[in-house]
């Protein structure tokens, strides 16, 4: 399997997916939304997709990721995989 840090050419779609998820949860208020987004990603994304998005963000890319899903991704990263 290729190293997560070397793939990134298609991580834009993960950013778009995370933003779409956030758009749904946003009206629930910040705290609930962050929890909702984090839970959604945890339930439906593969671990590999999460790693890829993280690697992408770690490289300073992913500027298109909105603040709300970014906070949710941070929250997820504090939990065990």
């Amino acid at each position, binding site marked *: 399997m290729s190293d997560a840090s070397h793939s990134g050419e298609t991580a834009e779609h993960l950013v778009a997916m995370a933003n779409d998820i956030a*758009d*749904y949860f946003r009206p629930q208020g910040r705290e609930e939304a962050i929890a909702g987004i984090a839970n959604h990603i945890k*339930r*439906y994304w593969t671990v590999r997709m999460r790693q890829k998005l993280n690697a992408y963000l770690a490289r300073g890319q992913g500027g298109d990721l909105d603040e709300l899903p970014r906070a949710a991704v941070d929250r997820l990263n504090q939990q065990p995989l």
Partner: protein
Amino acid sequence: MQSIAEKDLGTPARQSAKMVSLTIDDREVVVPEGTSVMRAAALAGVSIPKLCATDQLEAFGSCRLCLVQITGMKGMPASCTTPVAEGMKVTTESKALADVRRGVMELYISDHPLDCLTCPANGHCELQDMAGVVGLREVRYGYDGANHLKEEKDTSNPYFTFDPSKCIVCSRCVRACDEQQGTLALTIQARGFDSKVSASQDDSFMDSECVSCGACVQACPTATLSENSLIDKGQAEHSVITTCAYCGVGCSFRAEMRGEEVVRMVPNKDGHANHGHSCVKGRFAIGYATHPDRIVKPMIRAKITDPWREVSWEEAIRYAAGELKRIQAKYGRDSIGGITSSRCTNEETYLVQKLVRAGFGNNNVDTCARVCHSPTGYGLKNTIGESAGTQAFDSVMKADVIMVIGANPTDGHPVFASQMKRRLRQGAHLIVADPRRIDLVHTPHIQADYHLALRPGTNVALINSIAHVVVAEGLVKEDYVRERCEWDSFEKWRALVGDPKYSPEAMESVTGVPAAAVRGAARLYATAGNGAIYYGLGVTEHSQGSTMVMGIANLAMATGNLGREGVGVNPLRGQNNVQGSCDMGSFPHEFTAYRHVADDAVRHSFEAAWGVTLRADPGLRIPNMFEAALDGEFKGLYIEGEDIGQSDPNTQHVTAALTSMECIIVQDLFLNETAKFAHVFLPGSTFLEKDGTFINAERRCSRVRRVMKPKNGYADWEITQLLSNAVGFPMNYRHASEIMDEIARLTPTMTNISFDLLDRLGSVQWPCNTAHPEGTPTMHVGTFVRGKGKFLLTEYVPTREKVNARYPLILTTGRILTQYNVGAQTRRTPNTVWHDEDRLEIHPTDAEDRGIKEGDWCGIASRAGESVLRARVTDRVQPGVVYTTFHFPESGANVITTENSDWATNCPEYKVTAVQVTRVSQPSEWQRRFREFTKTQEELVNPDVFVK
């Protein structure tokens, strides 16, 4: 001709709490009030002669053959039209009756060709039977008078023939078309001797409004209307009950057989979903099973540019398993996966997900419901607690107002549409929310109260504005909501949809629907009594598909329209087994009955049953598989019964992903679009060749029964089992019933389901368990499955797919009656006489702006790709919107669609693509490449592999 296996009780059953007792020829009989004397007699074992009556249709009283004598009544009343009365005394046989009946029959027979021995209905002709029953021995008028014996046959319909010389003008066909089908294509023209059956304005059947449902053919007591297959093959000698393998209505049929050959498919009167009705697909379009394109021999090749090599089953399976293991060794455990299909039985789908989870050791399994109804599962689970429709189809007969959203039942779910139309003709109200003027909006004797012709992509705006009216005008059923729903979730929802920004007036510029119509529709739905919502892919296949499903559930809860007959939220499932394939745990994150893989107790139950450790993290969804393939991480795929190469959006993206893989195993009937990129082809079996079950849109589990040996050698579940054993995960089921037994053991909503139960009851609707031993027609009675119903917030978020100067029109997609899904089956039947290509519907104004006329070739370009279709200029679509079906691969409808998808489930946004349309003179570049590629691929197949 009726089924050879069914008994006809003469008139339809009546429901009544009040029972009536009477005597018929000295036999006591007790029947519900309203029953006819004829039916009561039949129930008592007394057959009264009849010709114009049949229990599928209301009595008509025209033939006068069913006369009886009733004590205290004058004359000889017709038993079919006379209702029973308490204490009635009926005599069905006497000299006087016999004389009249013989006289009636004599008249019929004198104008009937006497070629019984060579007639297709011989032995099952009701006229012939009645001649015998009344003891007709001679015809005093002779056969030389004026008659109809030289009338010409109408052979225009590919499936049945109309031979008017045999017609007795009983009007059963006319009534079948009116009452059962609701198309009203037939009439009896003229009177007396000149009267005759006529299709539309004396057209041929083909040129008339006839939709070829076959109801008239089944109703005809003589051979006047006969199936061509019956004429060609002769009568069946046995029949087997099975389930249609096309749409989500799941009609029950009797396959009438001569040995291993199907003579005809006759809808089963006892079928719980269809009550003896059918559509052109299930009734007639089964010829694909023996179409010369069908492949019945396994094949392998190393590269997709190599010729296919025909191999033994053993070698094909060994090669496939070897490749899967090689790929996993090289690229990791997660580098392979499987895709199953709603066209598979439950047992097949269950085995595929079991193979992936237990045999491949990952959760990379998905099903084609990903691209159709995955939002239904998500939206309904989270609001009311179960990923399924709430009602039985029959519930529609108690609805007072029917709201159809983003569905086209007369094309997509024809038999249910006939039932819905019957209810509408009885006076139920109708609201249609659809960008396009579907047939239901205005059909014989039906006119929608409101057609909300919204702009594609604005569903959530519309549902919120309907909800706004309900909230703002005090139409919420507050008692219901307080008792049955989470009140605080309701309050939050009320605040959201109550916001002035969602008023119909404010939303009008977004949805394009006049505010007054939205207000009227909202009031009607909320106040007309039982409100029932039926929806289809026009709801789910959007970037906000799941949000819209929630919006529908919210609205139904707020108006108290859930939890009893006549109401509900009803997803109309496209394919036969969409519900079942989802129920079977074929989504990457859940086991059977929608239980998440991370749920330890659930996972342990499967681990214990399967004897392996299972993964607790979700696997790849289909679109993520493509992304992973393009990233070089996903290399092997086992696909059963699904054609992702045609049905998934952005074809060029999909084919790029497929091309990057090392082993694609396709199990199918035909060399479909995906198979052109495959390395292993495992020939599949048809629904006629295997045992199993399907679960239809109303959660109804019905049997599929094998009526002939598989032409490819194996039922599909057996092939999966062979592959599983070869990859090292042993399976040894001896019969499909054993798979269902395992499903039942591991699935709390299905613990009581077994082949034995289905044989006994015909079908059952899950939940079917200790609490509901014979199933559950209506769900959420008294309380929601999740406990309290939860209102979810449904903010409208416009799709990313926006029109602009470059792409100023919105393309939306749909389907047509005679073709099914990607068309692999129906394109290989005479159904193509109705629809032999996909066309682009375009509004006259948009057409004129572009100089496009009916039938012109138009180029359709989106940011994903380009294709070319012929134009159909029609005001069915609104200005700014174009529409096409997707039944023919060369149309490339999905070359144009984009990979935008539902935020929650990644169900593609097929219904909204910004496009430009121009007049062109040649096929698109993609189509030229497609044709070349198809030709090359077809040349790589050895002709010996096709069915003989």
